[in-house]
């Protein structure tokens, strides 16, 4: 039995929820990928509703141009990681839920680890490459993907892979290689629009957990804010696309190779500022440019093994090199040796200075 349900009284009063439904919500584990315009309202709504465990993943830092549509963030949050700020903000709203922040982008390399303990994935990303990846790993794990995306004044929403239903590939086909659809930065977006779509996504998540109503599966819902219109378009499963997604997802999830996660320039700078990690420059001393910072240890590759023997395996570490290749290999090696939190700077020092 739940101890304190007063906070949820108004939804427990609904026959579709009740005490039993509230307990289902408390036991639910939902992963939100993307903490931007869609991810914010999804996270707030699910936390407020009492969803017991929520993961929020985003490798981006907050920018001033996000603030007109990403209401979780303030001007003072700019340059901080979105997932981390979002997690702290919603925990203030409802300290009864668990929120885990993943300050990384969702990639093939970290997908298996990130989705491991979750039952529903909410796709709040802003690029279709990620959508194919989410679709495929959700299929391989056998869990639903609650999709939404936006364009100017319009939004679209569907739940893929719900109880064996059709997938993202069934609707839009397999076009991973040629992805050039515009995102908000390119085409613009009205600030309230993602709130509407995020609220619809959260509604689908709650319905799935509660087993209430009719989930938007096999249907694409289209919302046009400018014309105040809602359309629903049906679509079928495509066996060839289902097979393709499943195969790709299984390859990604069951890949035996243990690889370490790469981080972007923003996350790296933040780690430098906050002293959150042991940061190691694995380049030789003659490699330029040097990064001047007290927090950085200069340990060339040949000495890394001796040095790391003095470090606890749960120590959070970031490795970097010139271009990200050597740091990837070294990070993979250390991960393989049992270090649990090894990251590396994806494009190396060159990616950092170019930015």
């Amino acid at each position, binding site marked *: 039995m739940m101890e304190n349900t007063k906070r949820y009284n108004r939804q427990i009063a609904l026959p579709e929820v009740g005490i039993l439904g509230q307990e289902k919500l408390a036991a639910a584990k939902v992963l939100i990928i993307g903490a*931007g315009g869609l*991810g914010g309202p999804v996270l707030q709504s699910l936390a407020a509703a009492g969803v017991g465990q929520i993961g929020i993943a985003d490798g981006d830092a907050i920018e001033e141009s996000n603030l007109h549509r990403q209401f979780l963030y303030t001007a003072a949050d700019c340059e901080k990681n979105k997932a981390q700020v979002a997690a702290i903000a919603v925990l203030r709203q409802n300290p009864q839920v668990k929120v885990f922040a993943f300050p990384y982008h969702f990639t093939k390399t970290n997908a298996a680890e990130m989705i491991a303990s979750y039952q529903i994935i909410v796709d709040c990303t802003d690029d279709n490459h990620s959508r194919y990846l989410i679709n495929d790993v959700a299929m391989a794990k056998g869990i639903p993907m609650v999709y939404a995306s*936006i364009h100017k004044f*319009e939004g*679209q929403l569907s739940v893929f892979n719900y109880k064996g239903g059709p997938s993202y590939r069934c*609707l839009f086909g397999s076009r991973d290689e040629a992805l050039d659809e515009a995102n908000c930065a390119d085409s613009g977006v009205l600030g309230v629009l993602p709130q509407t779509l995020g609220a619809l996504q959260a509604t689908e998540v709650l319905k799935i957990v509660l087993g209430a109503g009719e989930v938007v599966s096999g249907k694409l819902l289209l919302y046009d804010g400018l014309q105040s219109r809602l*359309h629903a378009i049906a679509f079928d499963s495509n066996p060839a696309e289902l097979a393709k997604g499943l195969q790709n997802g299984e390859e990604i999830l069951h890949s035996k190779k243990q690889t370490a996660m790469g981080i972007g320039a923003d996350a790296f700078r933040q780690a430098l500022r906050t002293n959150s990690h042991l940061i190691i420059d694995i380049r030789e001393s003659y490699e330029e440019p040097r990064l001047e910072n007290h927090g950085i240890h200069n340990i060339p590759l040949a000495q890394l093994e001796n040095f790391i023997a003095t470090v606890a395996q749960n120590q959070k570490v970031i490795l970097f090199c010139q271009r990200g290749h050597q740091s990837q290999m070294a990070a993979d090696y250390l991960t393989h040796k049992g270090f649990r939190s090894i990251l590396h700077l994806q494009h190396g020092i060159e990616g950092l200075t170019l930015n």
Partner: protein
Amino acid sequence: MIVTVKYFGAVADATQKKEESLYLDAKLHSVEDLRLQLENQYPELKDIAYVIAVNQSVVASGLVTINENDELALLPPFAGG
């Protein structure tokens, strides 16, 4: 015959309208015929990925026949979030 075509997202950006009625030659009556006619009229459509629905259902094949008064929709995947 006359059909109604609805446009969404980047497709509506290319056609500069959300909806229109189109006259189709009686001999040209498949979804593929309509697609070619539209891409001729709006060349930008050739660069956009989209699927086509007839009467609120996505069609799996361009060979599906269109009938008088059908409502079609051109649906691109959106990307923003």
